[in-house]
């Protein structure tokens, strides 16, 4: 692969301090993810998977080292710049869906589009398109409280892709779902990767979920180990 990677972490250091204790999570993390990849990240609880994903999402920043996504050096951008970067360049799917309870499915999906210069009509047709893609046509008016976990997560995915970002980040997207719903969600993610060429980074505890990805990275003690797989 001669092409420059889509995502590059080099010498990333990150830790938290609680009171006087400093908790180091990464001391020198390196990672390269090419465009169009679908990576599963696994690892024990507390190994820093969510921390990594948050940095890739531009909602947390490295203490040192460089973090590049596309042409953007996220480690060098301020909160305002990262906020507008998030609006246009990445979509994120959470374990607990994180839909807004007072908005119905269509409105939740429409939310990110309010940050773009689109007419109401354009917004509506884009929302309809992605809801169709995740198999929720006809449920536009349902509120999150009336939907199953699997349905809510599909709304979450629709919201993440509605503004057509190149990068899709998922933090345990199936962690709260039964097997059947989980498989449906994973199928959608694989489809998005295959047909719409989204680069996907997915944190998961579920080995079966990891198998939907093209490759799996194991995070342990602040370092990555790539899983060997029979092709």
């Amino acid at each position, binding site marked *: 692969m001669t092409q420059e990677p889509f995502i590059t972490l080099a010498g990333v250091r990150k830790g938290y301090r609680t009171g006087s204790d400093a908790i180091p999570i990464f001391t020198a993390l390196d990672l390269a993810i090419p465009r169009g990849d679908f990576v599963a990240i696994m690892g024990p609880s507390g190994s820093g998977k969510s921390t990594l994903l*948050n940095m890739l*999402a531009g*909602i*947390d920043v490295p203490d040192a080292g460089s973090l590049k996504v596309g042409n953007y050096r996220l480690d060098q951008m301020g*909160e*305002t710049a990262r*906020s*507008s*970067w*998030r*609006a*246009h360049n990445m979509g*994120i799917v959470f374990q*607990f869906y*994180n839909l*807004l*309870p*007072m*908005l119905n499915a269509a*409105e939740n999906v*429409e*939310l*990110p589009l*309010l*940050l773009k210069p689109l007419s109401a009509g354009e917004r509506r047709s884009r929302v309809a398109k992605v809801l169709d893609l995740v198999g929720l046509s006809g449920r536009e008016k349902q509120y999150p409280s009336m939907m199953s976990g699997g349905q809510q997560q599909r709304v979450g995915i629709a*919201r993440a892709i509605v503004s057509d970002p190149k990068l899709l980040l998922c933090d345990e997207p199936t962690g709260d779902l039964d097997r059947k719903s989980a498989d449906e969600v994973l199928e959608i993610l694989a489809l998005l990767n295959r047909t719409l060429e989204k680069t996907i980074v997915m944190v998961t505890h579920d080995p079966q979920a990891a198998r939907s990805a093209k490759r799996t990275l194991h995070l342990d003690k602040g370092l990555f180990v790539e899983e060997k797989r029979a092709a």
Partner: protein
Amino acid sequence: MTFLSLARKNAWRKPLRTVLLLICIAVAFLIYALTASFLAGSQGTSAASEDVLGVMSVAGRAQPLPMAHLARIAAEPDVGAATFMTRLRGFVGSEKNVVAVSAVEPQGLMSVNGRELGLTPALIGSLDQGRDRILVGRALAEAQGWSVGQLITITAFQMVRQDGDREWRFEIAGIFEGENESTDTYFAIGRYDYVNASRAKGRDTVDVFVVRPRDGIKASTLAARIDSLFANSAAPTRTQSEKQFLEAFLRQYADIKLIVNLVTGVAFVTLLMIVINTMVFAVRERTFEIGVLKTLGVSGGRIIALVLVETFLIVAIGATIGLVLAKLATVLVGTVLGLAFSPSVLAKATAIALAVGLATGLLPAINAMRTPIIKAFRAR
């Protein structure tokens, strides 16, 4: 959907809380608008004229002045017009139903104060047609349910008739409207010649001379000049503008303006604390969701705007309810209580609403903007 509808949905997500907030805001604005209308109304002083002077006895307004003063006042070169009146105070029916008749010389009153009272030549003409005729102010007529042609009897508190009776009978000759809605019209105008001839005591005295300065003459200068005319006489005078008189009169009871300001001040400080507190909690409950919005790329400025618009919506609706109720009150009972819901009351209320919206929204809005996303996600 727009950001505005998002703010609206946020405002209504706990309907009971929002309704309680609305009631609280509406009551505060109702109190404000009613008290401000009171100050602007006829029982207040803003509508009272500063141009017309009243000459009374230094001993108080119940003390009569000799009619002879009129010639000396009228001879003063800066006086445009001068007339006189005596007040006949009494009640109709129940003793609490106080009614006052200003006994005047109709043409004289017309020239000094006709415009302010809304007097017309036709009204004066009908007064001239009979000695016991009176003109009734619109507010008084409406409150008593009187109409033109009706005969009424006023029982005087003090003024005894020559026959020893205190019952004064009048025929209503017309109704005067006042120059505008804040003019005090809660009294009647009768004829001095009739009252003077019929009373047992105090013949040819008056309670007050009413003086209009010539154009371009300062009322306060003329007032001092008139008082100096009589300073060494048997009946010294005190001359004040109608406005000064009313202010002094109200201050006899209390400094009404100060009380009104204190009451509304306390109401609004309480309101501010309640609304700020409620909004801070309402927004804090949503810390997690605000984190989600930020993750989607909603900027800090937009988050502030979202919370501010939400509080402005609630304050605006509450204030509107309060002001509409106040307006209804002034329409229903305003003339009796002397309330005037003037455009300036409305303008001030709007300014206060904006200030309250900003003051109550800013703190929760800034809180919301400043919470980092990572911390917001840990709030769950």
